């Protein structure tokens, strides 16, 4: 009894007060999970699997464990214990990348995510009540975090508690369950074995010798002499066992644009299995982008070919999007139009360009199915006709009529200020008139030569391709000239009503004096 009351620094009930609410997400046997996932197989492989580093088992799957394999065994021991065991060398960098990818995706749920160790992520759960859900907001957050991990192809278990240490210890020990209220932290930790507190083995052994077997017993030890007998590690474990951990999270910040890749089990020559693999890549990539509040505006699909080289396809989206379903629509179109020189051995999907996914900027934001339809048809058109054949137009302030616009990518977005009828766009600089004369709706790609026919200095008819067209009316000339520095031009334009053709835009080349038909007011 005396042990329980001996806290030196006041009431233990208040010790959790400064601790942040933390959701710990533990990925058991991450090295094995990742290998199984990246093999691109569907469900879990049947063969027992273990990951080896320096001749020692680092992690193994359930089938291997059932066969008697334990982490820490030597590879030889493991192979002897379990028939048919597949040994895979440990790739710490790939594990880390998988963990970072998951952390990125989890940023969609929490303001901060920390990569605590090689198999645990810590999420700042303090904002959970803000996202609604009332009393079980934290439980819902935990369930969603597990779902996000499942979406990335990883199995996880979650625990919510006050302080990063307690949450992590609970998750790693598999004692998640319902979120632990702050005042119950120590009680929830009490049944955990000592190794769950990650004490150095020497300290744990000495504690065990004293009869301290779990966190509860450790928490009841008197503070006096603790540091003296067990050192700093002992004090830290004692504080942790009492649920005292106010250290803030060290948030993870993603740096580069996300990439996801998968190696295909067998080389693939048709689109369907490729799309199947791509769907999972899209889901993972979209989750990671959504975590950053971004949408992809350009994707790069890299298909590693079985025999030689790789095929790279860049895909532009009509609007930045983090919706995997929209990407897939476009990818499907592009794959259908693609002729591959060989079988595909591996697929990589990169976000080549990302932008904050705007919600209100889009003309079709309230009609997502139309936006998806737009993406799909743009992709089909670009695949068959070439990207240059599909465009929107931007006006350019130049006098030369054929140069007064340029193609721009079509985004389906509303222009800055939609122009109303009667208000012509601002005329090019140096133009003294307020209102530019109307322009023809059709401009011939190459002007057609005209021959004037008339009497007494008046043009009464124009000859075009041998046809004589009577001139019914003619406006005063508008002179357009410029570009003296490069390709000077000097033209006198008139609007002429020609019998049988309607309103035409004709010009006289001032330097040569010749007449041309340039367009129609159609």
């Amino acid at each position: 009894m005396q042990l329980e009351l001996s806290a030196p620094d006041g009431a233990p009930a208040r010790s959790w007060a400064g601790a942040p609410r933390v959701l710990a997400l533990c990925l058991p046997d991450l090295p094995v999970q990742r290998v199984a996932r990246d093999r691109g197989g569907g469900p879990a492989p049947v063969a027992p699997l273990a990951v080896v580093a320096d001749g020692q088992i680092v992690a193994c799957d359930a089938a291997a464990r059932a066969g008697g394999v334990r982490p820490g065994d030597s590879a030889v021991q493991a192979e002897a214990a379990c028939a048919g065991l597949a040994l895979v060398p440990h790739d710490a960098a790939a594990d880390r990348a998988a963990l970072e990818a998951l952390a990125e995706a989890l940023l969609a749920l929490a303001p901060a995510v920390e990569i605590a160790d090689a198999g645990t992520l810590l999420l700042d759960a303090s904002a959970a009540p803000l996202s609604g859900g009332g009393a079980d907001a934290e439980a819902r957050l935990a369930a969603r975090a597990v779902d996000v991990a499942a979406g990335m192809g990883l199995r996880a278990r979650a625990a919510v508690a006050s302080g990063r240490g307690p949450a992590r210890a609970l998750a790693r020990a598999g004692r998640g369950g319902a979120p632990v209220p702050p005042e119950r932290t120590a009680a929830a930790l009490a049944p955990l074995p000592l190794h769950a507190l990650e004490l150095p083995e020497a300290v744990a052994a000495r504690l065990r010798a004293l009869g301290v077997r779990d966190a509860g017993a450790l928490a009841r030890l008197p503070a006096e002499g603790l540091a003296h007998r067990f050192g700093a590690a002992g004090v830290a474990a004692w504080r942790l066992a009492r649920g005292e951990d106010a250290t803030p999270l060290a948030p993870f910040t993603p740096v580069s644009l996300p990439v996801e890749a998968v190696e295909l089990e067998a080389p693939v020559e048709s689109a369907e299995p490729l799309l199947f693999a791509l769907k999972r890549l899209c889901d993972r990539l979209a989750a990671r982008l959504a975590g950053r509040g971004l949408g992809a505006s350009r994707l790069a699909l890299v298909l590693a070919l079985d025999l030689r080289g790789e095929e790279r396809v860049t895909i532009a989206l009509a609007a930045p999007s983090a919706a995997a379903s929209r990407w897939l629509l476009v990818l499907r179109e592009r794959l259908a139009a693609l002729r591959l020189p060989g079988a595909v051995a591996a697929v990589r999907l990169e976000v080549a360009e990302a932008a904050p996914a705007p919600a209100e900027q889009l003309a079709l934001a309230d009609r997502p199915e139309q936006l998806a339809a737009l993406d799909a048809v743009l992709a089909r058109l670009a695949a068959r006709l070439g990207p240059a054949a599909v465009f929107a137009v931007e006006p350019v302030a130049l006098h030369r009529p054929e140069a007064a616009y340029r193609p721009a990518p079509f985004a389906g977005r509303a222009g800055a200020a939609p122009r109303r009828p009667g208000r012509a766009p601002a005329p090019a600089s140096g133009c003294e008139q307020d209102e530019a004369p109307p322009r023809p709706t059709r401009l011939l790609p190459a002007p057609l030569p005209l021959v004037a026919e008339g009497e007494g200095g008046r043009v009464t008819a124009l000859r075009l391709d041998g046809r004589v067209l009577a001139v019914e009316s003619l406006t005063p000339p508008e002179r357009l000239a410029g570009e003296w520095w490069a390709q000077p031009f000097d033209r006198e334009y008139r609007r002429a009503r020609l019998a049988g053709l309607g309103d035409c835009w004709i010009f006289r080349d001032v330097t040569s004096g010749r007449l041309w038909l340039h367009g129609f007011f159609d």
Partner: protein
Amino acid sequence: VPDQRQLIEDLRERIRRIERRPPPCTRVVPAGRPAVDALLGGGFPRGSLVELCGPPGSGKTALAASALARAGDEGALGAWVDGRGELYAPALAPLGVDLARLLIVRPASTGGRARGEGSPRDALWAAEALLASGAFAVVVLDVPLAAGARARGGGASAEAMLRRLGGAAQRGGAAGLWLAEPGAARIPGVVRLDVAPGPGEPVVRRAGAPGAGAGRASHAA
């Protein structure tokens, strides 16, 4: 019979829901000119094609632009298949068209008048894809196609390809405006408006439609 029409409308709506297709925001796209709207019963019908036929300078392009501007006012997108390579987009902005919301498709094979007409096959294919996509309220089709022509490089006759456009418009719920010059290929079974240059605005007549006499003319205000 109005009751029957209502019944058919209701059934259409139910089928649309079953097929989970986007609702047509409006059944017509106004032409923006009262006289033309009156000829068409409110405007260009979505889900079908209308042919605008007239000589090069008659004003049919401006009429199509006017419909695009009305559609843009309601936040919808427009597309223009520029099979002749002649569309002069800067002239559309003063007519009220938001150029950022107008998709222009200009297949590389477009020739223009001087160089002879290129293969309309790509343009017709693009037209069908755009009409059926469901992303556009108005799709203007300016594809040079002489009557009886066969699309180069393929077996399908122009008539057959044109007939498919109607089905595509119906699938995608787009108003398709087919711009044609006199003597060009006709689309079978499609409402045709003849456009002729008038003293002020162009004169538009409805031709060849059942129930509307070819002689009934209307002058735009």
